[in-house]
């Protein structure tokens, strides 16, 4: 008996959370997939009606804007946040005196909620209250910085705010990576008289590949989930110029009573996440098998 218990204890302990995950994650993914194939409006209905919701999604200019925005925002946010984070980490790694204090300062924005970040940047970028008004007040009358109210540029204000929020976190991640590189190799390189920058490009950064992957995954899922920042900073506007798939889904499900559309856009969002996560999982699992 005790032998049986000993063998099966891990399974028994894991069973409840396994069941919960099956129902509340995969069960509801399945439910959403089902609803996305129906003509559900205010309330979910369950009669299947082929791919009508996906057809509507494909012809909706607003969803197209949302997907283009996700692409612009995701690419710029991930690339710039990683480059900036790496740069900050390398600069902080130069054995400077106030490293602790500086690290905290750069990491601090991460402690704020996206709503706070969004509201603060909304005021900073507001042409009538913030940066533009201030510089014009100094006498530079021709200074213009009205991206927040320009439909073509508004998405970039979201990129700015998101980078401000997250680059400190990426920096901390890279700093830990930099510190984990074997000191001996670096010292050996220095003895050989290899220039400082070459040590970084040829030794340290290549040995940090797993950190890059982690940072990429964290930033990518932040980008795809982005919702609160958009709501606080632009409210999806001007017009719907800064809509993202997440805000589109929210509008359809909760403001418009169009659950079918919301479900189909949620499925598309999930496919985008899969497109990023599956290769990652694949590479991870393959490494383990070796």
């Amino acid at each position, binding site marked *: 008996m005790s032998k049986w218990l000993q063998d099966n204890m891990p399974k028994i302990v894991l069973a409840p959370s396994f069941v919960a995950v099956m129902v509340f994650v995969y069960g509801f993914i399945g439910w959403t997939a089902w609803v996305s194939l129906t003509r559900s*409006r*205010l309330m979910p209905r369950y009669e299947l009606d082929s791919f009508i919701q996906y057809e509507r999604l494909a012809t*909706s200019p607003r969803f197209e804007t949302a997907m283009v925005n996700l692409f612009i925002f995701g690419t710029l946010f991930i690339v710039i946040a990683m480059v900036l984070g790496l740069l900050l980490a390398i600069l902080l790694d130069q054995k400077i005196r106030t490293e602790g204090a500086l690290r905290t300062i750069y990491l601090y924005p991460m402690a704020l909620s996206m709503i706070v970040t969004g509201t603060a940047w909304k005021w900073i970028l507001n*042409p009538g209250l913030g940066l533009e008004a201030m510089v014009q007040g100094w006498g530079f009358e021709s200074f213009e910085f009205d991206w927040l109210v320009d439909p073509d540029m508004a998405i970039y204000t979201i990129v700015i705010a998101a980078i401000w929020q997250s680059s400190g976190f990426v920096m901390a991640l890279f700093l830990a990576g930099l510190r984990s590189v074997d000191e001996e190799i670096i010292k050996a390189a220095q003895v050989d008289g290899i220039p400082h920058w070459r040590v970084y490009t040829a030794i340290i950064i290549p040995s940090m590949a797993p950190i890059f992957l982690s940072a990429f995954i964290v930033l990518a899922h932040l980008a795809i989930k982005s919702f609160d920042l958009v709501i606080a900073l*632009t409210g999806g*506007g001007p*017009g719907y*110029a800064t809509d993202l798939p997440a805000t589109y889904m929210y509008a359809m499900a909760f403001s*418009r009573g169009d659950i079918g559309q919301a479900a189909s856009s949620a499925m598309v969002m999930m496919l985008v996440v899969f497109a990023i996560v599956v290769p990652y999982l694949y590479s991870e699992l393959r490494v383990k098998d070796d």
Partner: protein
Amino acid sequence: MKTYVLSAASAIAIAATGAAYAAPEAEVLHYWTSGGEAKSVAVLQEEFAANGGTWTDMPVAGGGGDAAGTALRARVLSGNAPTAAQIKGPSIQEWYQEGVLADISDVAEANDWANLLPASIASHMQCEGTWCAVPVNVHRVDWIWANTEILSANGIEMPTTWDEFNAAAEKLQAAGIIPLAHGGQAWQDATVFETVVLGLGGPEFYQSALVDLDPAALTSDTMVAVFDQMRTLRGYVDDNFSGRDWNLATAMVMNGEAAFQIMGDWAKGEFLAAGKKPGVDFTCASTPGDGFLYNVDSFAMFEVDGDDKKAGQALLAELVMGPKFQEVFNMNKGSIPARTDVSLDGFDSCAQTSAADMTSTSENGSLLPSYAHGMALFGAQAGAITDVVTAHFNSDMSSEDAVKMLSDAVANSM
């Protein structure tokens, strides 16, 4: 012992018959949570309690009713519908089609609602011939508010056509005043849009374009002209309007930064709260053109079990339509009573104008539902139109492209 059993039995019998006269009970889901609104709903609660009822309040704040809608859906799906919920316009019919609304025709017929309400408002409260909801108030949407001092200083009369409005706006702009205070949020763009549709196209065009969604009307030259006027109006708005809340736009008119605002009569509450007087500090008028766009709040009753809850629904319906509640509530809220026989002596001049116009437009058939405030269309269609309106207003899209996009979007939302 025998007498004891007998008395016990009769006690049960009394309790059983008593159930038919159960104390009215109501759980009311609503989204009147801001200061003035909460005060208004408290009036109803007091009256309900004074009539022996037990009121369970279920206020859900946020999102202009979106959060309340979500809560309601969750309650209905779990088989635990509230006694009454604040829903309005075509959503009442949508809920009726889900088969969850109760019939309150008994109360309605006993109190002769059909003759007390303007016909088009009454039609919203009826589901396939039975009464399923009770109206609380009538907000007029097509108002234009003006700073009286600015108008007289610049020698401008309240405009009665959009051409007059444009001329006045040019004059104000030359004088360095922002002609139109506006907040760049989608629903505010939609509010201005529907008043322009009504003003330029007239009531019949409004009906066919924004209520019946007739493709011919949506793609007509009149609609092109409407979008042209929207583009003109965009020029009269300051550069900093994006994302501004409506009450901040109202404050601009109050402070003399801007001359006009196009907004429903909830804007009046802002003026009054700041101690401004209608006719003296600010002027109210209907937007250029004929007609009346209404936004009616209402309570729908849900199918519930238990005589106490059914009694609660009957009492609630009767009280909400009662002349006393309609008067007190609407004076607090800034709207006008839905029933036409309430004395308007205590109301301000804007409300009196509104009530007089409601009666006259009801007679000539130009009393119309507001699309921007969810009275004319289902959410998906109204949202599709708003998307186009706000995309056009916030970009340099041509009117022809906007019209094309409008008919595509409406077709796609069906």
